[in-house]
């Protein structure tokens, strides 16, 4: 099972807290918006990734799990809401 970072660009307003918390995986574009396209989160950064997800005031960052052993819609909903995998 792999875990990826995803941005909800409609919710995001580019304040950049996520990029500060997780500079290893999140950069910003020239307008301050996070660049995370399909970034796979290595195990050692999962804890920091969860913190970054919870830190977004607009709930615009989420972790998505995929691959074998992954349950579909309900799991994603839990991930979206809690930032936990």
């Amino acid at each position, binding site marked *: 099972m792999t875990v990826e970072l995803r941005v909800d*660009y409609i919710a995001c307003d580019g304040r950049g807290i996520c990029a500060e918390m997780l500079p290893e995986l999140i950069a910003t*574009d020239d*307008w301050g918006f996070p660049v995370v396209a399909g970034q796979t989160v290595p195990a050692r950064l999962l804890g920091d990734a969860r913190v970054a997800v919870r830190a977004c005031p607009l709930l615009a960052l989420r972790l998505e799990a995929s691959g074998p052993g992954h349950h579909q819609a309900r799991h994603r909903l839990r991930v979206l809401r809690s930032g936990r995998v």
Partner: protein
Amino acid sequence: MIARKPGLLGDGQAGLAAHLARYGPLRCSADRAALLREVDRSGLTGRGGAAFPAARKIAAVARNAAACGREPLVIGNGTEAEPAIDKDKTLMTGSPHLVIDGAQVAAVLAGAAAAVIVAHPRALDAMRHAVAERAPASVRVSVQRAADGFVAGEATATASWAARGTSKPTGTPPRLSGRGPAGVPTLVHNVETLAHLALIARYGQAWFRSAGTAEEPGSMLVTVSGAVRAPGVREIGIGTPVWRVIRQAGGPSERPRALLFGGWSGVWASAAEATELPLSAAGLARLGAVPGAGLVEVLPASACGLRETARIARYLASQSAGQCGPCAFGLDALAGEVSRIAAGHVDGIALVRRWLGQVDGRGACSHPSGAVRLIRSAMRVFDDDLAEHAAGRCEAV
């Protein structure tokens, strides 16, 4: 001119009697599974630009609707917000009953008792008139005026418009087939796709596949515009060579410099490299292009490809829904810089390349990626003209 009859576009008679005389009655098989298999075997893909397999999308909606016990929402997308393309308007005004038939077939296959056709304002009267001509049927088809704006034609934006009156893309997940803006599995099909469905339901998959290629079967509507003698909408078999498509539009009115394929958020190619190719996804792949929604815009040698690209880029930037930072800011920045390049200040090329990389693939819909695709192809095809512009000249003759 296509390989087989009858075609999508009638002979000017849009009424119900003429429709039945031309195509025969629609007898929708009670065996939904068999009909869906027929659609699957036909190889029909969406004609709105994305070319997703129609049967697969319908099956997903039907499956999800059955699983959650809700009736799906079925929408025929005739928004045609792309200013350069006319094929959906032409289809809706010329063969409205084919579109209604197709909406009914789609609804039956998806397990719905109703369908909404969202129609461009110029085709609204024709669609409403056609609906009024029909006797009540098991599937209630209604017509709704489409919203304005380029991104209003995007699938989730159309669904959002039909469901709750706001025409902005909603982003995925969830996919429309799982849960759309109305809270139920939602099927959105371009009106041309629906018309093909109506013909497959009548004549079968083998008939449908007798045009086109084995990998990309069927026919499609193309809009040929720009420097041709007889611009307009015509039906072609997929895979028809580009030069023949242009000849059917009366041939070039001037020496062609370049072609724009797909739509305004499509891909440029030089006339030299493109005219021999088949108009199909396989044929255009080497150009990084797809047939898309069927635009073939011919740029003459007397026009400047960079200026045309700048004009389109400014339009695409103006049409951002403004929901996503990379699109709202990035397209504006790109359009501005491409405009400067078109005006002779080519020092901004590096910035354009940087922003193309930053904007691509980021946003709730594919609008920013489409603009990136257009601009990137212009940088390639009009590469020589960049040098000319830097020297205060232009290759336009």
